[in-house]
């Protein structure tokens, strides 16, 4: 493909980066990224990837836009309340950048449709709000060998890591199995500072673009290294970031030497059963 005059102008601030250039921008335009969840994390991810010119953006979300979403889910606006989130996101993306083809999946990401949806996407972004989905995304991506970005937020805290299946530690290497129902609250129960979603989501978007631009076996390209084998943890109250380093866990139940998880499953966990401390 050749860049059009308009594209050369639109993406000029990318193209002038030696780490991107015209060739890198073409890679971005030819890339396919799947965003699971068009909410707090998925919104900033989708906005930045759309602006960057990612050629195909798949968006998975079963929900409709609710008034309580608008405090942080910045891809949706007041007139979108009641609309399917995937439709609202698609309309915003189309306005930002006509180069982007949007494929919508108004469904839950489940064991039965996971591998079919992952299809031929190059990279996956986890922007979901519950553990059954996060563990399913990890397992499906490991089995399908799809690189992905994990993100999680709660109150003033956030965490993110990038997973290259077979090469770097996966989510289960760190968090072996789902926490029992009710032990860990979700945003809808515990709240979240809206901007924290933006901080985490834009980190996930940056990781996505770095992956698309390419890396060598050491994870490096043009001095860009991915957030692999480390969990980035941030707290917005103290505004401190720190990272915990680790390696692939040989006992990991899905990517270890002797995996015990060989097929996908839908894990049951009611989101609203938060135990109250007495």
């Amino acid at each position: 493909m050749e860049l059009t005059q308009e594209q050369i102008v639109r993406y000029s601030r990318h193209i002038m980066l030696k780490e991107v250039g015209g060739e890198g921008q073409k890679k971005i335009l030819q890339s396919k990224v799947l965003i699971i969840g068009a909410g707090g994390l998925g919104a900033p991810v989708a906005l930045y990837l759309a602006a960057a010119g990612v050629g195909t953006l798949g968006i998975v979300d079963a929900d409709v836009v609710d008034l309580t979403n608008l405090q942080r889910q910045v891809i949706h606006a007041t007139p979108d309340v009641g609309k399917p989130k995937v439709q609202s996101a698609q309309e915003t993306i189309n306005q930002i950048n006509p180069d982007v083809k949007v494929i919508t999946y108004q469904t839950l990401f489940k064991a039965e449709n996971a591998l079919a949806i992952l299809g031929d996407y190059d990279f996956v972004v986890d922007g979901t709000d519950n553990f059954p989905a996060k563990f399913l995304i990890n397992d499906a991506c490991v089995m399908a060998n799809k690189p992905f970005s994990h993100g999680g937020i709660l109150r003033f805290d956030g965490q993110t890591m990038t997973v290259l299946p077979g090469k770097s530690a996966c989510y289960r290497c760190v968090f072996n199995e789902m926490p029992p129902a009710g032990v860990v609250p979700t945003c809808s129960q515990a709240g979240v500072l809206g901007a924290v979603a933006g901080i985490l989501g834009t980190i996930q978007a940056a990781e996505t673009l770095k992956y698309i631009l390419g890396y060598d076996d050491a994870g490096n390209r043009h001095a860009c290294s991915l957030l692999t084998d480390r969990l980035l943890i941030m707290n917005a109250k103290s505004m401190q970031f720190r990272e915990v380093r680790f390696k692939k866990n040989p006992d990991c139940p899905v990517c270890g030497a002797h995996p015990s998880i060989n097929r996908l499953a839908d894990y049951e966990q009611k989101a609203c059963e938060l135990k109250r401390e007495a």
Partner: protein
Amino acid sequence: MKLIINGKEEDIQPDNVSVTELLKIKSVEQPDMVSVELNGEFLKRPDFGTTQLKSGDRIEFLYFMGGGSR
């Protein structure tokens, strides 16, 4: 004893505590809430009670964070 907990050096008394006891001291109500890394290796949850900590150990509590969409 001196432990490095979540990147910060802390003086923990008494000297001989297990991971389970440290979680209590640090007010982690339920061990199910965290994944624990000790000196770069992840601990299996059933081993929290039998793993004794020693001075200089580097321990990380990694919290589950499930939010993102709704």
